């Protein structure tokens, strides 16, 4: 509105006025509804979590200020240290295995000249219908049958059994991301490699792998974060047990805040988890950019 009222210098053509576009307040009005909802239900609670993490609070009575005490507990408490340790194991199953499998599969699905490839590509696409989520977890859990169920009660095998479900869920997504990357590699590169006498293995390491760095970075970020945020899978399958053998940080947040009445400690675990996710994101973004 305002810019039509302001007298334009005679030299300004309509086209140039158009490029200036709507007034700043006008633009802000488009952002405002989203910003209000987002700030109320994500940004404010995030700040509140940091605030709560500095207190000892059971959720009902008066809170006592403990400074960084809850964070010291994250580093020293045996249960919490175990929970973060289990996450490292889950990262192998959720991120490293699917990425390794996905790389080989994506290379085959895009480059191999075989009969029946459309069928295998369809299977890969079908796997994406729910990249994560409790429904999928439960589907695969039931689908994996009695073996998985027996393992879940075993102190040694419970965590790997949970991990295999993660591998199943994440492989589809990773494969599709990498397929998109590989299909953009020019054919000439491969032809040149073949002429130089490179076999399929050399070709993979010399051409395919370096060309999909950016996609690898995205895939690793998504899957590592999925491993860090595993909650529903643990809640549904093991409840952190047997003992605390499958307890993970997300589960500790829930357990402490809503079952044990240790709200401050739960908030501190949540904030720690958030910081770890930020750091991983930044690190992987760096690796992806450096070409």
């Amino acid at each position, binding site marked *: 509105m305002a810019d039509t009222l302001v007298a334009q210098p005679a030299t300004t053509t309509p086209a140039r006025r158009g490029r200036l*576009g709507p007034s700043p307040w006008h633009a802000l009005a*488009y952002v405002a509804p989203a910003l209000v909802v987002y700030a109320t239900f*994500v940004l404010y609670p995030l700040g509140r979590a940091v605030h*709560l993490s500095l207190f000892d609070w059971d959720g009902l009575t008066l809170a006592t200020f403990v400074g960084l005490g809850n964070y010291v507990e994250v580093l020293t408490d045996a249960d919490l240290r175990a929970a973060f340790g289990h996450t490292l194991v889950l990262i192998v199953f959720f991120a490293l295995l699917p990425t390794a499998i996905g790389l080989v599969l994506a290379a085959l699905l895009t480059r191999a000249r075989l009969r029946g490839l459309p069928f295998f590509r369809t299977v890969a696409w079908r796997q994406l219908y729910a990249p994560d989520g409790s429904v999928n977890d439960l589907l695969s859990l039931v689908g994996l049958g009695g073996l998985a169920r027996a393992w879940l009660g075993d102190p040694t095998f419970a965590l790997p059994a949970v991990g295999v479900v993660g591998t*199943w869920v994440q492989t589809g997504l990773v494969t599709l991301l990498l397929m998109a990357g590989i299909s953009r590699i020019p054919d000439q590169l491969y032809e040149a490699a073949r002429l130089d006498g490179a076999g399929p293995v050399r070709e993979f390491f010399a051409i395919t792998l370096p060309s999909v760095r950016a996609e690898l970075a995205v895939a690793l970020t998504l899957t590592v974060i999925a491993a860090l945020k595993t909650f529903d899978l643990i809640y549904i399958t093991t409840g952190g047990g047997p003992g605390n053998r499958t307890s993970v940080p997300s589960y500790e947040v829930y357990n402490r805040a809503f079952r044990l009445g240790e709200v401050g400690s739960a908030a501190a675990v*949540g904030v720690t988890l958030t910081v770890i996710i930020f750091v991983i994101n930044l690190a992987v973004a760096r690796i992806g950019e450096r070409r």
Partner: protein
Amino acid sequence: MISRTERSANYAILLLFAGFALWPILTILGGALGPDDAGGPGGLANFPAAWTEGRFGGSMLTSIAVSGFVVVVAGVLSIMAGYAFGTMRVPGAAVLFPLFLLGLMVPTEVIVVPLYFDLRTFGLTNTFWGIALPQVAQSLAFGTFWMRAYFRSRPPSLIEAGRLDGAGSWRILWQILVPPGRPAIVTMVVLTFMWTWNEFLIPLVMATDEGLRTAPLGLAFFQGQHTSGLTLLAAAAVIVAAPVVVVYLFLQRHFIRGMLEGAVRE
């Protein structure tokens, strides 16, 4: 061109993968259609049996209402915000847009604790709003990011032409820019729907009433009670997964196109 060993190795890997990918799905479908837990004939009758025993009528309705609300509200707000960030000069955009990006990384775990205790103060826990609004907010981070990328990819001449024809920014958005953006918007809708349908922690914390339970929660509780037989559990899992599969199958052509375009862009 390709040696015989290479060819057979390729087939072996692909078959192994297809087996790994399809095995759980086939076991579930087989289980859901198999003889019932008491040893009766079962078959298709397992589905109504699981539906009544797990009381999925209520939880499926709650899930549909929550997902529908989140998809529509987050979708419209994301389109508006993405339009402004992508085509206009928003004051403070250098701070505001990264704030939205931050939301892509904030895990539900960290916000659910303060949300529960603050919403409890306002009596909003155990309500539809307590379950839906936090999920709208979380979906806005991805939605705004995604739609901004789409609007930035539009040629500026398109907007200028609309403006010269006398269209306001509102009409330019909905009549010129949104219609050709169907693949991008469908991708956002499908992803938001899947995330909301599958969300577990927020409804688990917010809904203490059985009447407000979403379908995945209903399934988890059903699983807790049904440890003996797999047939009804498999049937229940198929029921709860069905809407996601249906939405995906309906929109998959747009969805795949949107995903690939999104991957190439930026």
